[in-house]
C-alpha cells in the first residue's frame, strides 16, 4: 500500500519542519552553486509538497516525479502542480537509470530527493549508487528513510549484522553492540549512512567527492531520517564545504525534529516569547497558562521558525 493511502501529508508538523530545513539549506547553497536550472527528481506522490517548495523557493522548473504503481502515477499526473512536472512510472532504479541515459538530463545538475517511507534496504543503496554514478557535477542528493529500529532487524546483534552487511566499512567497527539498541540506533544509522554516501562517491571516482550536508533525524509517526550531501565540481568543493560547515547551515540540527503537536493558541503564545537569548523555561509557560515536557519545549524552541500552523479549511 502506498504511504499516501495511510498518511495525510498535509498534517505532519515534523515532516514540514524537516522539509523547511532542507529547503532553507538548498536556498543557502544556491548562492554558491546555482540550483535554478537544475532538474528536480523526487517521489512527488499525489501531494508534491517538495516539488512546490523547489519551484517556489529555488525557481526550479524541470521536475520528474517517480511513481512505481499505475494508479499512483495516474493520480500523480492528475495532481501535478505545475506544467513542467513530469510523472514517470516505474521502479525508482529503472526510472533513475533511464533519466541517466538521456543526454539532455545530464546537461544540468540534479537535485534528487529520494524520500522513501520504507527502511534501509539494498534497493535504496542501489538507487543511491545510480545517482552518485550519474548525477552531473554540483548535484544534490538527499535520502529519507524509515529509521525505526524494527526496520533494521531484531535485537542489537541483528541490527549490527544487518547494517554491517549493507554498509560495510561505513559502520564503525569500534561501536559496542549496545549502540545498536533501539534507543541509539538512529544516530548510528545516520553516521553510517552519511559515511556510506561519502565512501560511494570516492569509490565511484567522483572527482569532487560528496560533501555531507544533511543529517536530520525526525519523528513522523515513525522514527525517520534524512541524510544527504552535495556532489560538487572539484573547483567548487572548498566553497561548498565552507557553506555546509558554516554556522548558518541548517542541515545538521542540534536537536532531533520531534516537535509536539500544538494548538494555534499555544503556538501564538510561545512565539511571543521568542526569539530569546535565554532558554524558555517551563515556569514561563505556566505563567502564561499551559505547560509542556522539557524535551517538547526544547525541540519547539529549536525549530519554532519552521513550525507550521495548520488550519482546517471548511468548505
Amino acid at each position, binding site marked *: 500500500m502506498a504511504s499516501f493511502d495511510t498518511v495525510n501529508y498535509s498534517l505532519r508538523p515534523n515532516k514540514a519542519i524537516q522539509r523547511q530545513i532542507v529547503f532553507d539549506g538548498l536556498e543557502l547553497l544556491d548562492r554558491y552553486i546555482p540550483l535554478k536550472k537544475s532538474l528536480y527528481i523526487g517521489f512527488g506522490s499525489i501531494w508534491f509538497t517538495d516539488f512546490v517548495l523547489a519551484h517556489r523557493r529555488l525557481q526550479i522548473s524541470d521536475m520528474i516525479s517517480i511513481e512505481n504503481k499505475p494508479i499512483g502515477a495516474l493520480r500523480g499526473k492528475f495532481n501535478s502542480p505545475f506544467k513542467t512536472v513530469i510523472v514517470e512510472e516505474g*521502479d525508482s532504479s529503472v526510472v533513475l537509470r533511464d533519466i541517466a541515459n538521456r543526454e539532455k538530463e545530464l546537461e544540468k545538475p540534479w537535485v534528487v530527493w529520494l524520500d522513501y517511507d520504507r*527502511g534501509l*534496504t*539494498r*534497493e535504496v543503496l542501489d538507487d543511491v549508487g545510480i545517482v552518485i554514478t550519474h548525477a552531473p557535477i554540483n548535484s544534490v542528493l538527499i535520502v529519507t528513510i524509515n529509521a525505526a529500529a*524494527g*526496520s*533494521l*532487524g*531484531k535485537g542489537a546483534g*541483528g541490527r549490527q*549484522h*544487518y547494517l*554491517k*552487511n*549493507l554498509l*560495510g*566499512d*561505513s*559502520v*564503525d*567497527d*569500534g561501536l559496542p553492540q549496545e549502540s545498536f539498541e533501539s534507543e541509539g540506533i538512529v544516530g548510528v544509522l545516520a*553516521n553510517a549512512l*552519511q*559515511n*556510506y554516501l*561519502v*565512501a560511494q*562517491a*570516492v569509490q565511484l571516482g567522483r*572527482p569532487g*567527492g560528496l560533501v555531507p550536508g544533511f543529517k536530520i533525524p525526525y519523528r513522523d509517526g515513525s522514527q525517520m531520517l534524512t541524510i544527504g550531501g552535495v556532489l560538487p565540481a*572539484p573547483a567548487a568543493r572548498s566553497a561548498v564545504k565552507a557553506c555546509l560547515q558554516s554556522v548558518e547551515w541548517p542541515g545538521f540540527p542540534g536537536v532531533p525534529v520531534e516537535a509536539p503537536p500544538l494548538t494555534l493558541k499555544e503556538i501564538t503564545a510561545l512565539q511571543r516569547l521568542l526569539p530569546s537569548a535565554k532558554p524558555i523555561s517551563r515556569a514561563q509557560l505556566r505563567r502564561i497558562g499551559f505547560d509542556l515536557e522539557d524535551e517538547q519545549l526544547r525541540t519547539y524552541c529549536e525549530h519554532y521558525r519552521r513550525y507550521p500552523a495548520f488550519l482546517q479549511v471548511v468548505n
Partner: protein
Amino acid sequence: MEVKKVNADPTKAFFVHTITRDIKLEDCILDLIDNSLDGARDLLGSPEPSLERAINFSKYEVAIEFSEEQFLIRDNCGGISLDDAINYAFTFGRREADDPDAYSIGVYGIGMKRSVFKLGDDIVIRSTRPQPKKGAGEEPFKVTIDVPGWLRSNVWDFDLDSAEPLSAPGVEIVVKSLRENISAEFSNPAFENRLRRILSRDYSRFIEYGLTIRVNGKKVKAFEFNLLISDAIKPFHGEFTLKGVRVQIIAGMAARPSDTQDPDDEGEKEDRSGWYVLCNDRMVLAADKSELTGWGYEQKNRWHPQYRGFIGIILFSAQRADQLPLTTTKRNIDRDHEIYKLALARMIELTRDWIDYTNRRKSALDEAKSIERTAVYVPAFTTPTNKQQVYPRLTSAPRAQDVTIQYSKPLRVVRELAQRFGEPGMSAREVGSKSFDYAHRELVGGGD
C-alpha cells in the same frame, strides 16, 4: 661489430608514477608502519618471532593522522641513524652488501619511498636518535622532498638538514600536497574504518605484544584469533624448520560450520574463515580462500560456504627477511618459494580434514551440533602442541531423505516477506524455508 652500450638507467618517473601503482593506499601505510616496527624490534635486540612467546613492545607507539590536506606518521621506535639515512634508507632498492636487521619485515628497500611518493608531492621526513649515555649523540635531521622539483632535476639525491628534535627518539613523516585520489580517500570515514580494521588484523601479534597504534587519535585494538577446543575438538598446532625458516601452523574450528550453502547468507563480508599467513609476525594474507592457500588447488576443494568456520594460521619466521615467501607489497605470497610449497602441502592436508568433517556433519547435524556446543573458545596462539587435528566422531544414522526445493521470485517481494517475518536482513533461502514452514503449518498442521 663494435660492442655498444644499451641504456638501462632507471628513471625517477618510474619510482614516482609507475611502481606506486602496484600498491594499494592502505598497504603503503602498512609499509611505513613496518619500518617503525623494524626499528622497535632492533631496539629490543631483534628477538625471534614465535607463536608461543611474547615480545614486549609496550614502550612503542605508532601514531597515524590524516585529513583531506595532509598525512602524518610518527613513532617512538628509535629513528634512523645518520649513517643509515645517508647510505641506505633513501636508496632505491636494497644494495647487495646491505645487511638487514634480524627478523625485520622490510626486505626490498622500496617501501618508504614508494609510500610517500604515492601519497603526495611535499614530503618531510624527520628523525631523532636516542641520546647515548656517554658522548655526543647524533644530531636530529630532516629530509625534505619536493617531488615535482626532484623530478625536474638531474640529481637523484635528497637534501638532508639538521632539524629540531622530535619529542621522543623516532621518525616523523609528514606528506602535504596530497594526490587528489589520496585526499579523497582520507576524507572518507569508511577508509578510516577499513584501515583500522586492517591494522587490527595485520598487526594483531604486535598489538598483543603491547604495541600501541593510533589512527586519528583512536587506539587500534588487536583482532582476536580464537579457536574452539574440547575433548572432541582439538586444533592442530605444529611446526617445522627448513633452510633457516621456521614454519609454525595452527588450524582448527573457529566457529560452527555454516548450515547454509548460499554465498549471500550469513554475511560473506564479515567472514573470517580461511588461511592467515604471517611473515615475521606481520600478516600478509588474511582469511584467504583462494588457490594460493590450497582451496581449489589442482581443481579440488574450491572454497564453498559449507566450509565456513575453519581458521588456519601459518607463521614464517626468518632472520633474513629475504628468505620469507612474501612479495614486495607484503600483501601477497611468492607461491614459487620452496618453503611455501612445502608449507602449502601441509595446509592442504589440514584443510582436507575440515572439509571431510563438514561433509560427515551434514548427515548427522544434530549430533554434531550437540558435540560442538560443549567446546569453548581459547586464544588460538595458546592452543597446545598437537600433531593431529581432531573433529567430532559422529555416529548418528543419516537423517530422513531431504529434497532441495528451488524457485525464483522477484527480489522486492522476497524483501517484503522478510520484513513481514520481522527480520529484513533474512536471506532469500531463509525466507523460502520459513514460507514453506508457514504453509506446512497452516495447511498440514505439523512441524518438519
